[in-house]
């Protein structure tokens, strides 16, 4: 596997996949950070982040997945390399190596944005200490839906020559996921889409917020952790991986 991962690195030379991923992460951070924080919001800053970030992640992480997976897999289709690779090594290993390489980039960006969020909180002067346990839980609840979305995109990108198919499937999924977050009265909707789990796993709620007082009397509280949803999305990762790998192995080249 190390050999295959080394090859993945060699293949992506001059493709700027990592730089592209960093740029998208930077855009996401630029969207989150530069805004005026009122004194009330600074008081609630740490928890406010945990409340707001799942929505931002629901938009950016799937888009990042589309771009990373597509750029990594497109090089195989463009030069008709899958045929050559398939007679050189096991197909399952090709699927795994590409997946691990892409996921490493995704995980790096996820951790980077997570660390930047905390650093920004200190920079802005959010009250109190960072609730590290909640932030670690948030990291886990961001990473696992991202894993699911990435496995989905990876499989499509590898199995379809035409990356437009992959792109549209991903974009439709992303919009559906974001849309589901705005319909809290239909919790089943977000739980039926892998893209909706950024919201389904949101564990911080905003209470007593009014248009007049805004954050004056408002407070954020932990609503409880939905481990059932976590188990579902984790199981979806395993199922998608098994099916995706099988699909790729059986595909005629």
């Amino acid at each position: 596997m190390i050999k295959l991962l080394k090859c993945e690195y060699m293949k992506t030379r001059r493709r700027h996949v990592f730089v592209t991923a960093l740029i998208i992460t930077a855009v996401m951070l630029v969207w989150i950070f530069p805004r005026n924080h009122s004194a009330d919001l600074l008081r609630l800053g740490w928890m406010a982040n945990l409340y707001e970030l799942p929505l931002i992640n629901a938009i950016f992480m799937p888009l990042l997945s589309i771009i990373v997976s597509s750029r990594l897999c497109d090089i195989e289709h463009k030069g008709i390399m899958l045929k050559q690779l398939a007679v050189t090594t096991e197909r399952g290993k090709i699927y795994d190596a590409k997946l691990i390489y892409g996921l490493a980039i995704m995980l790096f960006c996820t951790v980077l944005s997570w660390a930047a969020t905390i650093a920004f909180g200190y920079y802005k002067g959010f009250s109190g200490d960072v609730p590290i346990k909640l932030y670690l839980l948030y990291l886990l609840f961001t990473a696992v839906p991202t894993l699911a979305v990435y496995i989905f995109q990876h499989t499509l990108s590898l199995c379809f020559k035409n990356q437009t198919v992959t792109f549209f499937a991903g974009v439709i999924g992303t919009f559906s996921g974001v849309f589901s977050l705005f319909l809290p009265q239909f919790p089943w909707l977000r739980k039926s889409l892998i893209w909706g789990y950024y919201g389904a796993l949101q564990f911080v709620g905003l209470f007593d917020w009014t248009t007049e007082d805004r954050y004056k009397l408002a407070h954020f509280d932990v609503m409880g952790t939905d481990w059932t949803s976590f188990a579902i999305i984790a199981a979806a990762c395993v199922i998608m991986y098994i099916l995706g790998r099988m699909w790729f192995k059986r595909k005629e080249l």
Partner: protein
Amino acid sequence: MQEIVKTNGLTKRYKNTLSVSNLNMSVNEGRIYGFLGPNGAGKTTTLKMLLSLVRPTAGEIDIMGKRLNSKTRTELLRDIGSLVESPSYYGHLTGEENLRILQTLLDVPKQNIDKVLEIVRLDRQRSKKVSAYSLGMKQRLGLAEALLSFPKLLILDEPTNGLDPSGIQEMRELIKFLPKQYGMTVIVSSHLLSEIDQMAEDVGIIANGKMMYQGALDRLHEIDTNKSLEEIFLDLTGKEMSL
């Protein structure tokens, strides 16, 4: 002479189309086997089945005396080099970088890269991006990839496609040189009779997925001494083809 490839009742069906039908192929070791047939006859599908890129609907494949299946696949493919349909490459990388990736995967000595680049006469263009290569150069890179592990069996599917006359001549000389120099067995497919006539020692003629003739090329001439090779071929395939 030992058979390096043997198929028994090899069949491939795509929905309602029978692409390869009950094909019994026999390739002897150390020979150049020309696999001849009109376009759409089932040559590429057959070669893809030999490489496990396509699953047969029925039939068996024995390579180097071993049955090709999911267990033996990886081991057998290590001894096979291939260039099927069109050359495979990463356009954004140089010729040498392309070969470096395959050399890493195949776990063969680095020196093989220099050797194969020299054989296919691409050593001067090794540092050039493949996207800037001409079609002939890409085809030669494809051949270099196939040769990288100096395999026992080389499968080349229409390797002269798209090449100019001098490129065709060069590729032909390269293919003829391989069995003599490295003891390889070469299966080369083409729809051009003249092409096979100049390269192959044995020939398999396929039409509509069926093997119409198989044996030494010399014996094909003997089928009907009053007819030219082209006429014999047309009789066998029952189709018009480019000669």
